[in-house]
C-alpha cells in the first residue's frame, strides 16, 4: 500500500518553545486518520508544516512522496486543506473565490464553472454563491473552506477542526461530506471532537507536547483502553519525561 503522508522526525521550535519533538507517522493512501491532542499539543503545527505554511526546525514531511519543504508547489498540488478558521477576501463572492483558487490550480472554462457549482451545492451555499463574503458568518466561511478543499478533487485532504463554528445541522452535513470524500481520498484530520473523529476515521494518532503517544486503529485503542475517550484521557495525562 502506498503512503500519502509521511512525517519523519519532525521537530519544530517557536523560538525556545518546543512545539513538535521528532514526530514520525505515516498515513497510508485512502486511509482516514484522525490527529488528536489537547490544545497546544502540536496538531496545527503538524498540519501547517504539511501545508507548507511553516518550516520544520528539523525532519521532513512528504505528501505523495514529495518533500513539502523542497518542492512545496508540487506537494501542495496534491492536497486540499483547511487550516484554522478559513478566512477569505471579503470583497469576493464564493463563486469568485473558487474561480480564483481553481484558476491558480490550473482549472478553467466550463470544467471550472461546473465544478464550482457542484462544490457550492455540496456545502449548501447555493443561495449565497454571489454574495460578498464580507457578509458571511464563521460557519458559512467554514463551508466555503470545505468547498475549496474539494474543488480540484485532490487525493489528500488535510483538515484542521473543519467543524468549528458550524451549527448542529452543519456539523452533520459536514461529517457526511467528509465521510463520503474519505471513501476515495486520504484524510488527515485534526479535531477535539472524539465522536466526530471516530465516525470519520479508522485510525487515530494521539499527540501531546509535540510527541506521538499512540497511533493505532480506533478498534485497537478501544480494546486496550475500553473507549477512545479513555484512551485519549489516559494517554494525554501521562507525565512527560
Amino acid at each position, binding site marked *: 500500500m502506498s503512503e500519502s503522508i509521511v512525517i519523519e522526525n519532525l521537530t519544530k521550535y*517557536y523560538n525556545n518553545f518546543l512545539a513538535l519533538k521528532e514526530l514520525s507517522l505515516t498515513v497510508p493512501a485512502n486511509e482516514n486518520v484522525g490527529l488528536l491532542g489537547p490544545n497546544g499539543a502540536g496538531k496545527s503545527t503538524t498540519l*501547517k508544516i504539511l*501545508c*507548507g*505554511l*511553516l*518550516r520544520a526546525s528539523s525532519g521532513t514531511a512528504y505528501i505523495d512522496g514529495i518533500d513539502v519543504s523542497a518542492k*512545496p*508547489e*508540487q506537494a*501542495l*498540488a496534491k*492536497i486540499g*486543506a483547511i*487550516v*484554522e*478558521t*478559513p*478566512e*477569505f*477576501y471579503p*470583497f*469576493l463572492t464564493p463563486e*469568485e473565490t473558487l474561480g*480564483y*483558487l481553481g*484558476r*491558480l*490550480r*490550473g482549472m478553467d472554462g466550463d470544467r471550472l464553472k461546473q465544478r464550482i457549482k457542484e462544490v457550492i451545492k455540496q456545502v449548501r451555499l447555493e443561495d449565497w454563491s454571489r454574495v460578498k463574503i464580507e457578509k458571511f458568518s464563521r460557519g458559512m466561511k467554514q463551508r466555503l*473552506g470545505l468547498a*475549496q478543499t474539494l474543488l480540484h478533487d485532490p487525493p489528500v485532504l488535510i483538515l484542521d477542526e473543519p467543524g468549528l463554528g458550524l451549527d448542529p445541522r452543519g456539523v452533520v452535513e459536514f461529517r457526511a461530506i467528509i465521510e463520503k470524500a474519505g471513501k476515495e481520498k486520504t484524510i488527515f484530520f485534526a479535531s477535539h471532537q472524539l465522536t466526530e473523529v471516530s465516525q470519520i476515521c479508522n485510525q487515530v494518532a494521539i499527540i501531546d507536547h509535540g510527541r506521538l503517544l499512540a497511533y493505532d486503529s480506533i478498534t485497537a485503542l478501544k480494546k486496550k483502553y475500553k473507549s477512545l475517550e479513555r484512551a485519549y484521557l489516559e494517554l494525554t495525562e501521562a507525565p512527560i519525561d
Partner: protein
Amino acid sequence: MTEFERLRVVIGYEFLKHIRRKRLYIILALTLIAELAVLILVPVLGDGFPNNVMVMAALLSIGPSLATIGAIFFAGDAIAGEFENKTGYILFTNPVRRTTLVIGKYIACYAAVALLIILGYVIVVISLLAIYGSVPIETGGSFGLCLLYAGAVLSVTFFFSAVMKGSMSATVITLVFIMVISGIIDSVLMMTGQPHWFMLSTNGDTIATVYGGYEAFMGGMGGMGDMPFEFESPSIGLSVLSMAIYLALGFLLSLWITKRRQLT
C-alpha cells in the same frame, strides 16, 4: 500550468480587489480635489494664473503626486494582510510560488496607482491647454518621474508590509518614513548644504522641479524671499537613479522576506 499563467490570474484578482475597494475612489477624489484647489485658489489668491505655463504645470503636479501617495494605501496590506487576516491560510496552500503572489500583487497595485496618475495628468494637460493653449514638453518628464516615484513608494510599502505584522502599522510606518523621516533628513541635508539626492522626498520633488527647479517655481509664485540657505534643485538623473534603487531594493527585500515568512 506555467507560473506566468498563475501570475496573470493573481494580477487579475488583485486588480479586482483595488477596483472594489473604497480607497481607490477616495484617493481619486482627493486627486481631483487637489487639482481643483490649484485651479481655483491660484487665480483667486494670486494675481490671476501665473504668466509662465511651467509654473502652473508644476503647481498642478500636486494632484498626480498625491495619487502616488495612494500607493501606500493600496500596498500597506498587500502582504501583511495575508498574515494578519489569515487569508494566507487559504492562499498559501495553493501550488503557487509566493514570489508569484508578491509580483502579482505588486503589478496590480502599480496598475491601480498608474491609473490615478494617468487621470491626474489628463487633468493637467486639459487644464494647461484650456488656460495657456499649450503643454510644456517637460510634462512628459514629470509624468515619467511620477510613475517611477510611484514604483519606488510601492516597493518601500511592500517592504514594510512584508516586515510588519499588521496592515495598519505597515501603512503608518511607510507614511512616517516617506513623509516625515525622509522629509526631515532631506531638509537638514539641504540646509547644511549636503547632498540629498538619495532621499525619497527629494526624489518626489523632481515631479515638479522638472519644470525648472525650485527657483523658477518660487520665482513664478512671487519669489523666494530672504531664505537663510540656498535651495539646490535635485538632479533629475541622480533622482532617477535613487528611485530605481528604492524600487529594486524594496521589492527584492519584500520578495525575500515574504518567501521566508511563516504563518504561525
